[in-house]
């Protein structure tokens, strides 16, 4: 079958209404699903006795859209949080999910020896943040070099780094940057930010 033509044997699979509604129905051997795009209400509809849609696949390389109403990307994967320098680690785990321009990252970092690594930043975000700074949260911390009663971070704009901030006493002014990472520090955190 050439592009743009439909074989006679396949006509039963495709119908076009006068209103511009296209319905695609599988051959008789598999009639339990049909897809209609768009239906009268403008929606993509999967129907039949056992309707299902396994997923929507985007290109491996994003084709960016400037349209504010267009979802143009989905990707999930892993990344490796670091503090740079000669630091060594007991655990480095990071995951990310990107939906459109919204990035969600989660990480766990256990420093063995910090060496010449930075003591106030976590580096290595999988995609650079854009358009401002974004708050992040720690769900757990332990063995900090300095005791705190509040610890958080923000994602720097146009960067792949997260800046630690903290207060060391109730009512104290927040310390930015907070140099609290050290040997044996363990932190677990997450953040959301926009990419370019």
């Amino acid at each position: 079958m050439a592009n743009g033509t439909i074989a006679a044997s396949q006509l039963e699979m495709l119908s076009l209404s006068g209103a511009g509604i296209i319905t695609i129905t599988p051959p008789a051997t598999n009639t339990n699903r049909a897809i209609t795009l768009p239906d009268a209400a403008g929606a993509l509809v999967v129907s039949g006795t056992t309707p299902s849609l396994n997923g929507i696949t985007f290109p491996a390389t994003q084709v960016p859209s400037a349209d504010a109403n267009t979802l143009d990307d989905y990707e999930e994967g892993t990344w490796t949080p670091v503090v740079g320098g000669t630091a060594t680690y007991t655990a480095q785990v990071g995951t990310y999910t990107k939906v459109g321009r919204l990035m969600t990252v989660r990480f766990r970092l256990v420093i063995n020896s910090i060496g010449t690594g930075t003591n106030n930043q976590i580096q290595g975000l999988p995609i650079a943040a854009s358009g401002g700074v974004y708050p992040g949260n720690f769900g757990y911390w332990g063995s900090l070099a300095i005791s705190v009663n509040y610890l958080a971070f923000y994602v720097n704009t146009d960067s792949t780094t997260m800046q630690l901030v903290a207060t060391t006493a109730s009512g104290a002014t927040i310390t930015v940057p907070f140099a609290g990472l050290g040997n044996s520090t363990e932190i677990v955190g997450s953040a959301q930010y926009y990419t370019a």
Partner: protein
Amino acid sequence: MALTETKVIDQITVTENGIVLYREATRILKDGDQIAQTYHRTSLTPAQDLTGVPANVVAICNAAWTAEVVAAYQAQVAMP
């Protein structure tokens, strides 16, 4: 039936301020056909140590990280 695993750097991006982002795709092939794929992303900031970084990424970093780019990035980082 043969299952094989391949790893490739399938994407390298250089941001405006010189950060190099690359994506490693791990592909599982069954008799030559891809049946699964996972991604691992890494970011490199200008002048970062490149020990252990794949050679093709190192080449991109070395081309992108001119003295001007490194200086501009370090100035950006130094801003509060």
